[in-house]
């Protein structure tokens, strides 16, 4: 099985719409995962039917028992995450800041602090017309997004039977959720856009991807919004030995498709649909998906 993650560095370049469209064009059995767990949108385009949902437990969280607490302040002094609030009446731990390290509980002389499991979101498995989809939902404001990405990937792997492709819609950025997403991938497809921000973020995410993924491809979305900028991106990719697998034009049909909650597979006259079709063919060729 080939494992491919669609990522971008910069947000809003079109990762999700491309990821949702590819399964309709790649004629493979596949399993999908939405690893953009704190703003998961792949499901919006794939009309998933929920098969299974389970709670996602992140790192444990510390809780102070006000009856035992002597307000000595040792927990406050030792917490590196500024999670202990001395309050007016009682010391309490901010669940949003606590990273579950357990130091407060260790230093407390009154044995007043314990760490408890905490639900930070959910892990879901759904069926869609193009394959099984594993996805997650992080509670807004929770940490642990890298852990949830790992759990979503594990859920997807657990369902693999004889699929040829594992396709992931990744998160933006370069930090822990992205690293968790691309770890162990055979290839990443980086979606960029012709802007100074697009190129800057592309360079950074590729520097990270090189540490974790075997093969890297680029596609330039909305390339005709600034063709000279698009050429600069292509030039840089050529210099770096990274194949640009396709360029997708700006096309109001894409916004229409998203508004109607469907991929861009509509009328063949749509310029973007044709370009994504060509991109899919090149991906197949490059990855030699059987």
């Amino acid at each position: 099985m080939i494992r491919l993650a669609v990522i971008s560095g910069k947000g809003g370049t079109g990762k999700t719409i491309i990821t949702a469209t590819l399964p309709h064009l790649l004629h493979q059995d596949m399993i999908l995962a939405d690893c953009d767990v704190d703003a998961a949108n792949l499901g919006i385009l794939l009309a998933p039917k929920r098969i299974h949902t389970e709670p996602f437990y992140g790192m444990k969280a510390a809780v102070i028992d006000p009856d035992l607490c002597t307000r000595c302040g040792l927990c406050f002094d030792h917490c590196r995450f500024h999670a202990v609030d001395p309050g007016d009446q009682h010391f309490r731990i901010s669940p949003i800041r606590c990273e579950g390290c357990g130091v407060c509980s260790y230093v407390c002389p009154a044995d007043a602090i314990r760490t408890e499991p905490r639900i930070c979101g959910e892990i879901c498995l759904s069926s869609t017309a193009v394959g099984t989809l594993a996805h997650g939902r992080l509670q807004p404001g929770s940490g642990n997004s890298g852990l949830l990405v790992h759990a979503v990937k594990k859920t997807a792997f657990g369902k693999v039977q004889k699929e040829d492709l594992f396709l992931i819609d990744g998160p933006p950025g370069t930090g822990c959720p992205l690293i968790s997403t691309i770890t162990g991938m055979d290839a990443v497809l980086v979606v960029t856009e012709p802007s100074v921000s697009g190129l800057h973020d592309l360079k950074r995410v590729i520097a990270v991807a090189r540490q974790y993924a075997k093969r890297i491809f680029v596609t330039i979305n909305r390339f005709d919004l600034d063709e000279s900028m698009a050429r600069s991106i292509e030039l840089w990719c050529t210099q770096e030995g990274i194949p640009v697998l396709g360029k997708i034009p700006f096309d109001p049909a894409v916004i229409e498709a998203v508004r109607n909650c469907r991929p861009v597979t509509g009328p063949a006259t749509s310029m973007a649909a044709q370009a994504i079709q060509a991109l899919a063919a090149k991906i197949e060729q490059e990855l030699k998906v059987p």
Partner: protein
Amino acid sequence: MKIAVASGKGGTGKTMVAANLALVVSQSCEVTLVDCDVEEPNLHLFFGGAAATTDVTVPVPVFDLQSCDKCGKCGGFCQYGAITVLPDRILFFPELCHSCGGCTLVCPKGAIHEEPARIGQVTIVHPSPWLTLITGTLDEGKPHATPVIRAAKDMSRDAGIVICDASPGTACPVVETLDGCDACILVTESTPFGLHDLHLAAEVADRLGVPSGVVINRSDGQDKKTLEFCATHELPVLMTIPFDRMTATIQNRGGLISRQSPEWQGRFAELFARCHNLIRGSQ
């Protein structure tokens, strides 16, 4: 006064709003713009000036193998799986370490001390007399963004008006950015993606008790669902920016619309006034 610019969904125009707002406000008072999107910081692409850079470090454990008797207490205590004690050596995985200091506390032999390890940097530029830009940058391949965000925000402590540009998403980097802010501008676009993620981002601001308002960007007039959502959730719409290829081109090349157009200067000045009202209304 501290204003955060966030969005949930990426690429909705947070950076554009933060940059233009800071530029316009800095014509009449001192402004510090903080790029808290440390995984992919972009504000520096829109402003020039000589840069001063300092390292951001986090403390990580160093093991003295002479005094260590491989008892394994450190590895047992670490909640992040960053330490594995073997009979003949210790494996330490810095990318898993959260720098909590627990291992040094529990070591009965005093064999662990901490040393700073670089994970990123903070850069300060002064593009104009009343404008300071502080950029946090996470080193490529490093996972933990929040210490870099904290370092960048800490440097802005003394300035009058602070504008913080958040990363996309709704997880810990966004919480770290919004923490301590007086108001939050949520930038969205009128698509199901934009609306879905606006909902989540508004929930984060609400959980943190930061009053927020909405900027609708790249509007093509079909904003009905977004406007309905804002009305139901009592989120004021602070500004609507129409889609325009010319505006996109200026932005794509590193330009700012309010640098060239008095009309946009006026509109961003109005946005600032509305942020003021947002804070006043919440008090």
